[in-house]
């Protein structure tokens, strides 16, 4: 099923990371696409900027950010958005994404993806901001479901219904992070299959997969390991329901060699092709 903007299924990509710069420039590996962390390239004219230009010449690029603070009650940072828009034009980014979260208020920044209370007030507030941001960027913003470690007692909505309603009302795309669905389901005790089944397929333009760290009492979204079987099962469920969607493997801690990260991303291909089995519940 195609998304409503006709964004392509770019295939299987990985995040562009500093430790792989030399390998990518010297080997020019055969990989479908790269996701770029926007903030890492906005304010530098050094080697990262040079490498990005080289990579963007050869591969499709998608921009993914962590600082838009879509749900914050602080004013929207148009200086940041201006730089993001410039970077998107420079790299000919297929789309631009960030997270359903807030990162700071009162002029401060925690540099974390902090959870929203899923209330009517928060929904109205976020819808308005997503509309404003999309208009400024002159493209639909794509929002990712974050991993969360607490739930506000004030929340009236489930995260998936909040996200689905936000996407419809603000007319934005979704980046469905399957690992984050699993992590949050473990931390909060919901059924990840229900989450996936309630997300409107025509809004989803990208999938994230990653490994995590299970601390026993909770799971941290560390992007530090291979994808676990339960997450692959959920990915297969997404494919059955939504069809082929650009899929990206995130690996941000203890990053192994390029070929290992790429091989992990390519595992997704077999889950698209394999027969569907009933996935594990969290």
């Amino acid at each position, binding site marked *: 099923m195609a998304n409503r903007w006709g964004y392509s299924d770019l295939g299987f990509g990985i995040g562009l990371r500093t430790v792989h710069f030399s390998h990518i420039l010297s080997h020019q590996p055969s990989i479908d696409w790269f996701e770029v962390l926007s*903030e890492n390239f*906005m*304010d*530098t*004219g*050094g*080697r990262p*900027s*040079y490498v990005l230009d080289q990579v963007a010449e050869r591969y499709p690029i998608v921009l993914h950010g962590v*600082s838009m*603070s879509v749900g*914050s*009650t602080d004013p929207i*940072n148009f200086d*940041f958005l201006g730089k993001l828009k410039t970077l998107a034009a420079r790299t000919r980014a297929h789309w631009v994404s960030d997270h359903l979260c*807030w*990162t*700071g*208020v*009162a*002029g*401060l*920044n*925690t*540099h*974390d993806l*902090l959870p929203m*209370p899923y*209330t009517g*007030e*928060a929904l109205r*507030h976020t819808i308005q901001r997503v509309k404003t941001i999309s208009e400024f960027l002159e493209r639909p913003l794509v929002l990712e479901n974050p991993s969360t*470690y*607490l*739930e*506000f*007692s*004030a929340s009236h909505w489930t995260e998936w219904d909040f996200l689905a309603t936000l996407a419809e009302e603000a007319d934005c795309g979704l980046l469905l992070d399957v690992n984050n669905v699993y992590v949050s389901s473990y*931390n*909060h*005790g919901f059924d990840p299959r229900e989450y996936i089944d309630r997300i409107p397929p025509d809004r989803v333009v990208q999938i994230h997969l990653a490994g995590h760290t299970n601390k*026993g*009492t*909770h799971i*941290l979204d560390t992007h530090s390991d291979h994808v676990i079987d339960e997450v692959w099962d959920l990915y297969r469920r997404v494919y059955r329901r939504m069809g082929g969607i650009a899929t990206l493997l995130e690996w941000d801690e203890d990053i192994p060699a390029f070929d290992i990260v790429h091989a992990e991303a390519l595992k997704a291909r077999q889950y698209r092709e394999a027969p569907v089995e009933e996935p594990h519940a969290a």
Partner: protein
Amino acid sequence: MPLDPGLVRTQRWMQAAIMTPGDCESAVAAEAVAAEVPAAQATGMILPSKTMEPLERLDIYRGMYEARLSEALEVDYPGLADFLGEHRFAELASLYIGENPSRTYTLNRLGDNLPGFIPDVEGLPREKFVQDLARLEHAQSIVFDAEETPALTQQQIAAVPEESWPDARLTPIAAFHLIELRYPAHLYLRAMRDNKPRPPIRRKQTYLVIHRRDYALMSMELTKQGYAVLISLASGATLGEAILAHKMHTPARHKQLFTMFQQWMSEGLFQSVSLAAQ
């Protein structure tokens, strides 16, 4: 019972609770946090999970905040972290972050105030060396991110008539920073980078130009005179003015200057040359 103080207060409360040092219980009781949500109601803001109490869940974010920002500082100040050791660096980072919380979307500039902060920190070992190390690493981080500007080519240099050089103004490349230190801190960083034993910390007035060549960070040691001439040139003086100001016009110094000048040009320190009005 669900507690909803509204989105503004919820976010201010959570942020203040995350940024307030100490344990989680005392953080939610701190004045700035309790001003948003009274301490007695704090646990009512968050649902418990099957395995964790509300404040334990909040504490996950508190732990990640300090760890993330400390890690970001270490990226910009690896030498400082190496010299101080994990525990002392973490203490310094915690103190610094407490007084200098991030105010921008980028972590790249989180450590900008650290060199100015360090002199006020008590109990650091070899404090003057530590100050120099911090100043040097900060300079390197600025040069690393500076815009790329092409260096003067041999043809551009050759196009300047010999008799015009005294009137020439040379503009440094953007990735260029001059720094004077009391210790040769660059040798410490070099040993660390090469995974070699760290050199002994001995005082020696040191003059450096930090620059970038082919996107690689370089630090070149200068003589006191060379440093002074480069300071003048970077400030807009002509070459002739810089030579006179720093008494480099004697025959003995002239040869020294010529050698330095050749080295600066081959290192690509300048992006343009213009001739002052006669």
